[in-house]
């Protein structure tokens, strides 16, 4: 059935493409993603037990409609080819049908073994998102440095559905229809307000980094241009918009490990000039600067400046 659908779709594309060519006019193709799938819905941790352990996370609001348009076909997520709910096979405890892959793993696993070419390699939410930010240049810079964390702030990005305990219990038992789960999702979505990210103008124009100036002069870092360029590149990404859910999220790549703030501490507040015996794994200030700049440029495949060309960023100090 899946194959015939793909075939039809391909045939349709070919016909439309031929029509475009014939007419010699650019005809915008209609969004292919629209199908009979649900819109946003609430995903409950379905369990066979009445009071399951490890199922206390808030449910997730999953916007099915947006995701449909972003993936190749249904099998990207519905990897068996049968468009049933994930929790049919993957429950909190795991079931034989789901090869005892628990719901938590099905949603978060990143170490998924690649299947042979004629089989579908299943994907989890996290593994698919991870692939996106790794393959997109505009994301890969920061995400070469930013690593997913297991803390309340990170988890709450997705686990944010507003449900009562009674609803939660009913949801766990899988007693809700698709429509009700959609309504529950809408309730949360209506409450949420879009996040207004900080503007590049909120930060300084330039930062003169010269605390370690020795053989070379310091670097005049164009802070505003860097922030503006990063923001410009991801302004159309819905994925970025959904996950950068704090005004200062974007700042936190460089200004990492401190609480989110419009006025974060300087690098030298934590990174000492000399190696710190209490924290030998922490890069020294010189290395912190270089690793951060080079790490992001590497991730984004910025060819210039060369990492070994000191004078691109630093003037040689002239003897006085």
């Amino acid at each position, binding site marked *: 059935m899946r194959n015939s659908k793909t075939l039809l779709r391909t045939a349709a594309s070919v016909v439309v493409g031929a029509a475009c060519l014939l007419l010699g006019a650019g005809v915008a193709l209609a969004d292919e993603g629209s199908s009979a799938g649900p819109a946003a819905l609430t995903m409950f941790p379905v369990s066979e037990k009445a009071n399951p352990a490890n199922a206390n996370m808030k449910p997730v609001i999953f916007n099915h409609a947006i995701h449909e348009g972003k993936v190749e076909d249904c099998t990207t997520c519905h990897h068996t080819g049968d468009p049933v709910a994930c929790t049919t096979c993957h429950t909190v405890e795991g079931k034989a049908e789901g090869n005892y892959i628990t719901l938590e793993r099905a949603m978060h696993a990143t170490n998924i073994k690649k299947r042979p070419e004629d089989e579908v390699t299943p994907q989890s939410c996290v593994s698919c998102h991870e692939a996106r930010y790794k393959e997109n240049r505009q994301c890969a810079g920061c995400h070469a440095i930013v690593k997913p964390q297991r803390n309340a702030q990170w988890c709450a990005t997705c686990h944010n559905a507003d449900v009562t305990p009674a609803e939660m219990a009913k949801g766990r038992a899988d007693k809700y229809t698709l429509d009700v789960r959609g309504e529950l999702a809408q309730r949360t979505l209506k409450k949420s307000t879009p996040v207004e990210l900080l503007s590049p103008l909120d930060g300084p124009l330039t930062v003169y980094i010269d605390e370690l100036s020795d053989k070379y002069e310091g670097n005049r870092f164009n802070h505003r241009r860097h922030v503006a360029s990063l923001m410009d590149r991801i302004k159309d990404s819905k994925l970025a918009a959904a996950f950068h859910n704090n005004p200062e999220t974007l700042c936190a790549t460089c200004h990492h490990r401190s609480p989110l703030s419009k006025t974060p501490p300087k690098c030298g507040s934590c990174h000492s000039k000399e190696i710190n015996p209490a924290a*030998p*794994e922490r890069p020294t200030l010189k*290395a912190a600067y270089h690793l951060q700049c080079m790490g992001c440029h590497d991730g984004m495949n910025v060819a210039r400046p060369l*990492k*070994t060309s*000191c004078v691109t960023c630093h003037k040689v100090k002239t003897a006085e």
Partner: protein
Amino acid sequence: MNRRKFLTILGSAGVVSALGTAKVAKASATHTFPYYDNSYGVLHDTSRCIGCRSCEEACNKINNLPKPDRPFDDLSVMDKKRRTSAYQWTVVNKYEVGGKEVFRKTQCFHCNDPACASACFAKCFSKQPDGSVAYDGSQCVGCRYCMIACPFYVPGFEYDEAFDPLVQKCTFCETTRLQKGLLPACVEACPVDALTFGRRGDLIKLARKRIADNPGKYVDYIYGEHDAGGTAWMVLAPAPNAEAAIPTANPIDAGHTFEKIGLDTHLGNRPMGEYTYGALGTVPMIIAFWPLLFGGAYAMTKRREAMHKAETESVIKTAKEDVATAMDAAVRTIEQNQGQQAADEARKAMVEALKAREASKAEEHGAHGEGK
């Protein structure tokens, strides 16, 4: 002394010698260097190294090494694989792992139990409690056994030095910097902390943490943790691609990547010296036993020869005496029967006959000897 006795002595000497060797081999642990718990080391993270050669420049400067032909900012020297030498104590080489350039600095690894020290009969090398392997050239004879023994091909020889050429290698900046509380020059010069200085034990923990915190970034192996009995300088290698993201913890898999960056993971986890202590332990045995053994054999042969000679002489003497007695008896009989004159003639004739016989015998013997 007969043949049987001789063989018995030879056999027992062999057994004693073998026992002695076995004892040395067993006691080899006492021959190895003590493992200094608080010794220092350096962790080289090749995933960070950018190949800028700052470390080479710093090393050259602090150790007053001769200026190289090509400046340190000429990175094209890395097109060829270079080795450390007497005048380049550290070099950075370029490798390729999974289509990406990877740089690795090499220098003396400052082994926990250095092979160079085990090979040196002049005792020029010593493992210091601070972790460095120090070289003192005052007794060096220039045999270069250390260069052959080193599993990392590190020590260099001053071939161009006509008088008193010495072996040279990285000192860990022990006297120049460590003892003054300063970091080794290369470590301080590194712009990206690809070199981390610390206590060896801490570095291993740090390396493990780095591997664990960055899944898929590193090969799950710390080169030098156990290789060649453990080294003070250790190396982390970047994982070749996303496929290696699932950690296998299999040293054979690690070996592929480490081989690509020029490190041999087949050195084993025993100190190099341990492989030879058994064989070398027999040397004192040989020195002690062989003069005794061969001296004894020589003395026995000599003694037997002397005895044989004495025996022969006594036989000849007896024979001669017998002839003389018989001749006397014959002459006396002739004297009694035929008178004094006849007896004299007979004695004369007999003496002549004896002489002639002896002469012919001697001639025959001589001819025989010549014929030989």
